């Protein structure tokens, strides 16, 4: 088991390095750097001005060197610019670059400086992640129990009318992406068009003070899309368990149906959905980006969109490291959890 986790960790780190390098490469392509210079400097910069702007700020160095500096493996640049000003990667604002520490990268815990928000990347990400965690926590609280109940109810009597009704519901919910359900929900309950204005169609105020009125719609929008998928997986696993030998034996012994479901079937039926729920996290990230843009809730997903559309390199790298980390850790947890839940499986 220990070896397995170690190996997985190794693969994880390798994946993270590859992915950040790809992001680094794509964001450092010449047209993207030009866009960055123009949004940071001014939009009508001449070509020479763009080049000197990039050279002065270390963007013109070769790609592997820049990546090494970001990682903290190579010393940060200290460049005397064409305008005579001395700039250093590691210098805090107002600090003399010659006094600054030599290395400042991810390995030293420095995530860089956001060109969009003019703030430290680590600070932005931690604040934004907090907002998103609040959203995700509530989504999980609504989605997981709801999906499990629907799945178990549908799966305990396969082919019954209850099963048909609930399965139809879960198919409809998987077929409704967040931007469709969000738009429909806002139109229904957030505007006066249909005379049912119960909630707010904007969650901006929910960042400081989440209430039933302003937070229901975003939570519901994400939860609905994920719910159907988990419910279908739970249903599949429940129907499989219900046809097992030991369930038949229990029925033949005359055990009441409710006891069979609660005591014999449920535990075994919940192993498969556990992995599905864990693997659902990266999916939720997608939904979070859409819902946060739709409801203008300034969390992690909103930050991703902002960073990507302004080519804010270091913020984008920070965001991708976090999201890759989420994906890989949930995969690891789902593998380990699967072993713990199912005693028949052993990983050497």
């Amino acid at each position: 088991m220990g070896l397995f986790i170690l190996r997985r960790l190794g693969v994880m780190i390798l994946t993270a390095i590859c992915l950040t390098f790809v992001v680094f490469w794509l964001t450092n392509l010449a047209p993207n750097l030009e866009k960055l210079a123009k949004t940071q400097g001014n939009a009508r910069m001449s070509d020479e001005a763009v080049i000197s702007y990039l050279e002065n700020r270390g963007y013109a160095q070769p790609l592997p060197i820049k990546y090494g500096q970001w990682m903290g493996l190579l010393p940060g640049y200290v460049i005397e610019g064409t305008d005579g000003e001395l700039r250093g990667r590691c210098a805090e604002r107002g600090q003399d670059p010659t006094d600054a520490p030599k290395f400042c990268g991810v390995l030293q815990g420095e995530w860089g400086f956001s060109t969009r928000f003019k703030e430290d990347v680590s600070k932005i990400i931690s604040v934004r992640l907090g907002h998103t965690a609040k959203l995700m926590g509530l989504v999980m609280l609504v989605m997981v129990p709801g999906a499990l109940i629907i799945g178990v109810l549908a799966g305990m009597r396969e082919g019954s009318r209850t099963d048909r009704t609930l399965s139809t519901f879960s198919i409809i919910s998987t077929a409704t992406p967040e931007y469709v359900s969000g738009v429909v929900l806002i139109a229904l309950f957030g505007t006066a068009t249909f005379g049912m204005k119960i909630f707010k169609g904007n969650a901006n105020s929910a960042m400081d003070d989440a209430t039933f009125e302003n937070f229901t719609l975003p939570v519901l929008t994400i939860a609905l899309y994920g719910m159907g998928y988990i419910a279908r997986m739970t249903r599949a696993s429940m129907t499989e368990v219900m046809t097992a030998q030991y369930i038949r034996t229990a029925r033949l012994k005359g055990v009441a149906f409710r006891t069979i479901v609660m005591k014999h079937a449920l535990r075994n039926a919940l192993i498969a959905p556990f992995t599905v729920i864990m693997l659902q996290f990266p999916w939720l990230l997608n939904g979070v980006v859409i819902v946060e843009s739709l409801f203008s809730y300034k969390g992690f997903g909103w930050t991703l969109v902002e960073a990507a559309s302004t080519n804010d390199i270091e913020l984008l790298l920070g965001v991708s490291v976090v999201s890759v980390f989420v994906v890989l850790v949930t995969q690891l947890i789902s593998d380990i959890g699967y072993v713990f839940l199912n005693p028949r499986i052993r990983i050497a």
Partner: protein
Amino acid sequence: MESLSWTGAIGAFMNPIFVITLACFGLAVVMQLVMSFFAEPMTLQSNADGTLMQRGGMFGGIERITKVAFMVLIALILLYVIAGVLLPYGKAGIVGLMAKRLLPVWIALVLTYTLSIMFKRKLGLYGKLFDSTVGMIGFGLVMFWVFTAIFAGGFDMLVTHDPLDQISGLKNKVPGVAIPDGNEVTWPHYLLGGDNLARDIFSRMIKGSVIVIAIAPLATLFAFMVGITLGLPAGYFGGRLDTVLSFLANLILAFPVILLFYLLVTPEIVATGIPSFMAAFLFVFPIVFFAVLLNSRYYTQPSKRNPMLIVVLGILGWLYLSLISQSGTVLNFMPDALDGFDINPGILVVFVSVVFVNAPTVFRIVRGLALDLRTRDYVAAAQTRGEGSWYIMLWEILPNARGPLIVDFCLRIGYTTILLGTLGFFGLGLPPESPDWGSTINEGRKLLLIVAHPALPPAAALLSLVLGLNLLADGLREESLKD
């Protein structure tokens, strides 16, 4: 011209009936769900004369009400459509006019269904689809949009206005609004109202289906070609090849899709030519697939193989070269006389990125199936006969994996549609005036809190298409498991 109401003259007596039936149906469904916890399980009783009798009681009664109410609902909807088609202009309101406008689609649907049901025993898996209600509903929804796209895109029927025409005074107007006098127009009303730029929402929704129906299945097909060509050897040979390919697939899958889209589908990246190179790489796979497919089967009969390969590779190669050679991008090497067509670079980059996102998942599915199937007896038999590896993979394993692959293909078209919508929602790739559903939802949502109606028709359209594909996949799965 007067503005239209939703159901016009027939609404006066039809609407109350419809609402009451709908309420009955909803109530019965809820009752049935609640009662299923208390009622005895449904049992069939066999009588002495060999007939079956269903248990009645409260539960049975409610079940019957649900069924009848559902049937009445369907009949009422049909009635709305038929009344709309038969009654003169405007008498059956917006719903009736839309039904009338979509008449070619209804005719095509009825023809498809009659023919398919008549010959369903001779049509294999496709025919069996008509044994399952779910599959039939799903197929109907999908074919509705397919026919709409064909008629609207191929013959320029169905749309009432040009999707880009703006008529002043109709900005954000409600559905059924009449066009002000003095405008030279083809149609006197905006059936679903006007959008933020005073364009006809109905026509834009119809035109949007053309883009979605053209891109989504084709992109899925390409993703399948890539996934199959790489997944089969990975699963069949295993070893280092499998390790490397799986690592690459997981690498792409670990990317959040939206981040990938934001990195790939921007004008800056298009300017660097990366999408063109990716297209050049990804579109090779279908050619490789067909070349290997034919060669592995007919390499013992060169007289048959050579002409076949020359024709197939010639056509595919020409398509490939004219596809990747685009004027105005880095890859522009074909002389104009030979270059068959140019695609809008916006659509190409959307297409490439959707294929790129989908291919690793297909790869994983195919790899898993190949891992499972390579231990079967028929594979061992083929190996003993001395068949080549590629023959075994493409002519023994692949046909036997078709069931799950067809089902996944349907589901994946739906997922691709959702991805296309996501791209449109973030305003990536396609030009902003494009009528595709994602872009129109994005347009509509900006003013959603003030005017709600522009965003709803494209949302409903996208939902119904994806739902149809999901139901179709469900029906296919059910039917393919039966034998």
